């Protein structure tokens, strides 16, 4: 049995740039902020879902299984089954994909699938030696034992490591994510200026989308306890220019690297939800789908070139559905790094690569920049890792509808050497 599956609605918070201190929201706070109005604008009760799935990478201690915590805080009822998924940068898409497969196969009718991440809240991590010392101190009973333990303190116990830095380093190759982008830039000959130019266009496109209302209804304001109203993605720099970006130092490999903070995705907090429904649920509740989820694919490769994940995951979708490059009207390729997105585009235009790796007779072809990340991407609006995969699917659906386009692919690279892709069609 294979039933049609629809994406009927979705909303996200503004993506809020991490500014050197914990932001106002936890992952579940963010999921609640955009979940409340999303559920409020539906014609059905919030208890009508069969399942809640949430992608989240950096789960905080107070919110184990954030999907369930969010479901309860959203008033979805004690009986709401909810689970959290984690496949690093693909988590927000994994939640949609799981929902898609459950509904396609007939076990579920309507699922709330999201992603939530608060990178600004990444904890400080103590060194292993310090952790052992704390444990020993807690077990020390007599004053003498305690005094002995105190004498073992070393100053570096108290210089914690930022957990986020560790999280963004591949455990197999010990390469930082930015370094994997440097590897691709080298292999595909992407120069600094091309990468910077790509980054500038990301900012300009997001700024235009914000100004022209193309994110209305998709981005809903978030309100924090200090009284701030966060209305839009705040990492955007409409005045970005190649000259300004040229001044930045390489972030990961000084002095010769090409990847800078200016042409990389930003570290941000944000959450996103989509409602995935069967035909039966659409009819029952009288819903108007935005798009149909046609197919999905996951792929894996060497972690040091994880940035090519989109190529390996998207190509099988095109091949299964006999789609040529011109058949795909819109692309959302998550902008982890400008050099990485550009490397993907280069790979698809490389005849040898397409023949040897993808099994084509010739190059897949050139993806027109006018069809790619039309309203900006992670370089301008940020990359809350567990959320981004959800955002690109939601925005692809909205962009297809807004432009009257027929077909699109949303895809992302995933730290650790993976790629995820999802094929949507206008409903």
């Amino acid at each position, binding site marked *: 049995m294979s039933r049609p599956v629809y994406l009927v609605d979705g909303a996200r918070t503004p993506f809020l740039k991490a500014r050197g201190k914990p932001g106002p929201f936890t992952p579940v706070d963010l999921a609640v902020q955009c979940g409340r109005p999303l559920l409020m604008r539906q014609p059905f009760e919030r208890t009508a879902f069969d399942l809640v799935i949430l992608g989240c990478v950096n789960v905080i201690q107070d919110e184990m299984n954030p999907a369930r915590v969010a479901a309860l805080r959203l*008033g979805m009822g*004690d009986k709401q089954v909810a689970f959290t998924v984690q496949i690093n940068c693909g988590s927000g898409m994994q939640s949609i994909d799981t929902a898609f497969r459950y509904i396609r196969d007939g076990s579920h009718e309507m699922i709330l699938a999201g992603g939530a991440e608060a990178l600004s809240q990444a904890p400080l991590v103590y060194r292993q030696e310090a952790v052992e010392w704390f444990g020993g101190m807690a077990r020390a009973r007599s004053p003498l034992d305690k005094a002995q333990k105190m004498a073992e303190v070393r100053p570096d116990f108290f210089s914690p490591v930022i957990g986020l830095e560790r999280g963004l380093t591949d455990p197999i190759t010990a390469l930082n994510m930015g370094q994997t982008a440097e590897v691709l830039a080298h292999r595909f000959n992407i120069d600094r200026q091309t990468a910077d130019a790509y980054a500038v266009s990301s900012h300009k496109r997001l700024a235009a989308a914000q100004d022209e209302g193309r994110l209305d209804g998709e981005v809903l*304001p978030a309100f924090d*306890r200090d*009284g*701030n109203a966060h*209305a839009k993605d705040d990492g955007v720099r409409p005045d970005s220019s190649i000259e300004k970006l040229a001044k930045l130092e390489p972030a990961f490999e000084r002095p010769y690297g090409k990847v800078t903070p200016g042409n990389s995705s930003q570290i941000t907090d944000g959450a996103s939800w989509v409602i995935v429904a069967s035909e039966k649920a659409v009819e029952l509740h009288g819903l108007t789908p935005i798009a149909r989820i046609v197919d999905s694919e996951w792929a894996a490769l060497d972690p040091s070139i994880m940035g090519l994940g989109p190529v390996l995951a998207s190509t099988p979708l095109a091949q299964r559905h006999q789609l040529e490059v011109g058949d795909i009207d819109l692309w959302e390729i998550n902008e982890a790094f400008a050099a990485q997105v550009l490397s993907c585009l280069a790979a698809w235009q490389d005849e040898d690569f397409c023949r040897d790796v993808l099994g084509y007779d010739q190059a897949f072809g050139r993806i027109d920049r006018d069809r790619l990340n039309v309203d900006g991407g992670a370089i301008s609006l940020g990359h809350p890792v567990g959320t981004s995969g959800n955002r690109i699917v939601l925005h692809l659906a909205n962009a297809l509808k807004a432009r009257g386009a027929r077909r699109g692919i949303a895809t992302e690279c995933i730290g650790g050497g993976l790629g995820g892709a999802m094929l949507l069609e206008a409903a």
Partner: protein
Amino acid sequence: MTDVLDELTPDEPTDAPRAPASLNWRQEAEDGIVRLWLDCENSEVNVISETVLTELDTLLDHVKETQPKALVIRSAKPAGFAAGADIDSFAELRGEGAVAKLEQGHAVLDKLEALPFPTIAVIHGAALGGGFELALACEYRIGIEGAKFGFPEIQLGLHPGLGGTWRLSQLVDPVEAMQMMLTGRTAHDRKAKKLGIIDALVPERHVEAAIHAAAKGEMKHHAQGFRASALRTRAARSLAATRMRSESQKQAPRTHFPAPFALIDLWEDHGGSKAEMEKAEIASFAELLDSVTAQNLIRVFFLRRKLKAAGKGRSGIAHVHVIGAGTMGAEIAAWSAIQGHSVTIEDVNPEPLGRAVKRASDICERKHLSGIDTRDALDRMMPDPSGLGRARADLVIEAVPEKMELKEKIYASLRGKMKPGAILASNTSSLRLADLVDAAPERTRFAGLHFFNPVSSMQLVEVVSHDRAERETLDRLAAFVTGIDRLPARVTDYPGFLVNRILAPYLMEAMVLLDEGRSKEEIDRAALAFGMPMGPVTLADQVGLDICLEVANSMRSSLDRPVAETPAWLREKVEAGETGRKAGKGLYDYKGGAEPPKSPEPDPSTEIIDRLILPMCDAAVECLRNDVIHDEEQLDGAVIFGTGWAPFRGGPMRYARTRGLGECRDRLRALAERHGDRFRPDPGWDSLA
């Protein structure tokens, strides 16, 4: 199908049978431990009435004969342990009669205390007043999480009267004990444990184990600190008492509130001997009971109950949508969310919505909500810039600026958008409902819901009717008000409704007095001496001089009687932006350090007091004559809970009656002769009995 949790949760705390010949107690015995469950008949809550105590007296005799291992006393009411003494019956007591009843009560609790086996009180919810005193007479107290303890008697102009003054000051640090009794503040579970009020704090599931531990003598009593023992000498008590007296005098003068001073005297003079202190407690309690202050404050207690009774039944309101996120809208939304409603709050701009969230968070903090309760309240309150809540809400409250066209525009936009059966209420304070109703989507389901600022501390809400409002609409609104722990006053569509109509002359006359050259401090301190919570000049600054000006204008144009002239300088001040506290400067200068006085004038001018107070009584008579509110009691209750009007004087009508209706009228006539027609007494005085 039954919900799992419901299936596992027992409906009743106990199924023990009624004790022999008892209406208020259930009794059972198991493992040699006798359990007495207090279960007052025909009531949701337990009160310590005379019957409860006489029945207990008999039961204790029987229990003693059976020589059990221990006796447990607890409540069979889900609501809590016991709310206090039976105020209905003791309000009638006077003099010798009161002394006799109190002595009987003391004897029962002394008997309980003297039993030769462990006595254990198990407390859930509130143990207040007489309920707390019952628990204090036991050897052990086991608190269930959420239990709270307190002596609210002081709010009735009394102090504890069933041995509480002695037992609490013996059990815990006597200064802490006195603080609890002087302020009426309750001690919540962990605080109570820390103070030593309870010996154990456990969840319900460990109560049986705790009872057995206490019965076997394995439960430790709270150890008193050095400070507590040091305070057990007469000299130390005198020193502490002097400090308490000066603190109490600052709160309220002895002439108006004698109870705190009686309590301090009692402790200072007799805190060293049980027999003496118990005897003196009875005498002092009986004397206070006779005082006008206590009688008026007890009446205020009944007025509260009466207002509450006007909001019985089900409101059918789960979701509240508030339009307008100004101060009032934000307060209404936050308070409704804290009280458990789903709330959406709409505004055209995101900034005020942000401020509304902060305000809600601040209220949660001020009300000491736990982290989890705060989070849940904030989760329930959704800022709603696109107005999604309009179609979901059972009640839409409009709280936008007082502009007729703006309100009409909003009402028009609600037409066809609201849920069937939903009510639209306006929080207007200066517009007439008769002028608004035609714009409402459903005239029968439209009414006024007038909150007072700040909603989180002002208890009154006026439910305002108009000619075409359906009875059911008003009933549902009143029930909603009770449901959010506020008091509804059902009033009609009258200029200023009830409370502002009565308060307006207080503010307006103060302006005239200022104009005549009286100092603002003199005016305010005279009003404080009368017992008003705030002088009229301070209040005008608090309300906002711009609002005062609007109120004055609307009174002048809509009332069928002369009102005080507005001095020109007031208008100039408002035009200059000096609108009161919110602007940092009004009649007082809040930045320049010229803050309003807080202490009452020891020898106030009766002229000033009469000119401020009697016009309020006159306005009250006018409101009664025009049926703005049902009766004098509701009127007094509404004015006290809406403005803080000197509660120990019982409200404007009670005050007028105490002073003499004829005398008030004559005095108003005399004032009219000297100061003008605005003092001319209302014709309603003549028909008052």
